């Protein structure tokens, strides 16, 4: 049943919206739209990716309506700023990456929240939800090359943010 995807959609909505109440509304709307758009569902395509696509559109529409961040192009610009702001080397960049051992409960979600939406959604879909590049491309409506570059930069930003938390927790010392 399409409801088999309910938990995964809810989890994704939660990570996108950052609020339980909003995630619930987004998921509810997603199913309603899926129901209405049913005759446009393309046989032979992937139901999961189709539902994620609707979920993302519902989420983006809400954001636009409320005048909040949208993924492009601001997201990409913000990312540049984030990257240069965090440019000084810290142990998060060291080859052994020991900070991974010290990531605390909730750190990944905190770090994800700091990512600009364009990167956050790519990382959530590929790394937390396990979608393939092709599926992520379908959901985000972009070519695989773009998926790859967003993933690569999103992961880099995420690592840096996690490295920053590890420093805050005192697990990792800043390097010169």
């Amino acid at each position: 049943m399409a409801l088999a995807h309910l938990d995964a959609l809810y989890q994704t909505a939660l990570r996108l919206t950052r609020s339980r109440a909003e995630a619930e509304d987004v998921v509810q709307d997603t199913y309603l739209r899926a129901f209405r758009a049913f005759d446009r569902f393309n046989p032979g395509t992937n139901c999961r990716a189709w539902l994620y696509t609707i979920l993302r559109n519902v989420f983006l529409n809400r954001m636009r309506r409320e005048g909040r961040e949208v993924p492009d192009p601001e997201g990409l610009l913000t990312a540049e700023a984030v990257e240069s702001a965090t440019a000084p080397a810290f142990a998060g960049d060291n080859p052994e990456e020991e900070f991974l051992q010290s990531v605390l409960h909730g750190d990944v979600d905190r770090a994800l929240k700091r990512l600009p939406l364009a990167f956050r959604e790519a990382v959530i879909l590929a790394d937390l939800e396990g979608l393939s590049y092709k599926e992520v491309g379908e959901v985000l409506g972009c070519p695989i090359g773009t998926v790859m570059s967003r993933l690569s930069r999103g992961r880099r930003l995420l690592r840096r943010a996690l490295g920053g938390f590890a420093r805050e927790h005192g697990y990792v010392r800043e390097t010169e």
Partner: protein
Amino acid sequence: MSCLELGARLHPYVDGELPVEETAAADAHVAACPSCASLVRRERAFRRLLRQQPRESAPAELRTRVVSGVRREARRAWRRRAWWLATPALAAAAVIVALLLPFWRAPAPLVADLVDKHIAYAQLDRPAELASTDRDEVAAWFRQRAGLRVTVPDYSPSGIHLIGARLADAHERRAAYLLYEKGRTLLSVFMLTLPDGRGRLDGTPVSYRGHEYRRAERKGYHTVIWTDGRAAFGLVSSLDYEALLECADRLRLERANATSL
């Protein structure tokens, strides 16, 4: 492949998204280059960290809200469009059909995908990502590498020996891939989760020791595929159907034992 080339392909390599030939070239480079091996280890540790993040289930009220919302929507649509669906029982049945339909329109058949993978890997010098004849080691590797619980069947009584494992993609999903050999003949065992809990399995239905399978021949190779819940299994080899069905039955049996323990 050089370090530079590996670096450029690091993410798709770790994500199992590189074509077979490039994966093999990257495997070979990583096996010989400690600094790239450490890069790959780091990247995998990071993926594991992300994959192991706790997940929240949807609250029960949300499930109820979704079902009643869709039902309400359905009633509204039918009142507009079809008087004959206006009775509650029919309306409920139609909601169920609507929610189920995405499964029936499942993705393309598995056989072609698996046979092409089998052929591609059979041509490599080192088809396995992890070369091992130890079933426990292979099972532990899948657990560690991708968080997968994989039953690694013992086919040695039939003279079929484990040679290793790899992560592959099949049906646009990551699949566990076990490699066996009988003499010089390769047997591929693929295990994957179907995208929508149910895929379209192609081939001729065949019953073996009380269980249903589908067999098919493609490009001169035999395949036997079957599903068990949301999991799908596929065997590909030039061995005959009888041998494949025997292997399928054994895997089913070992899985049943593993889950009942």
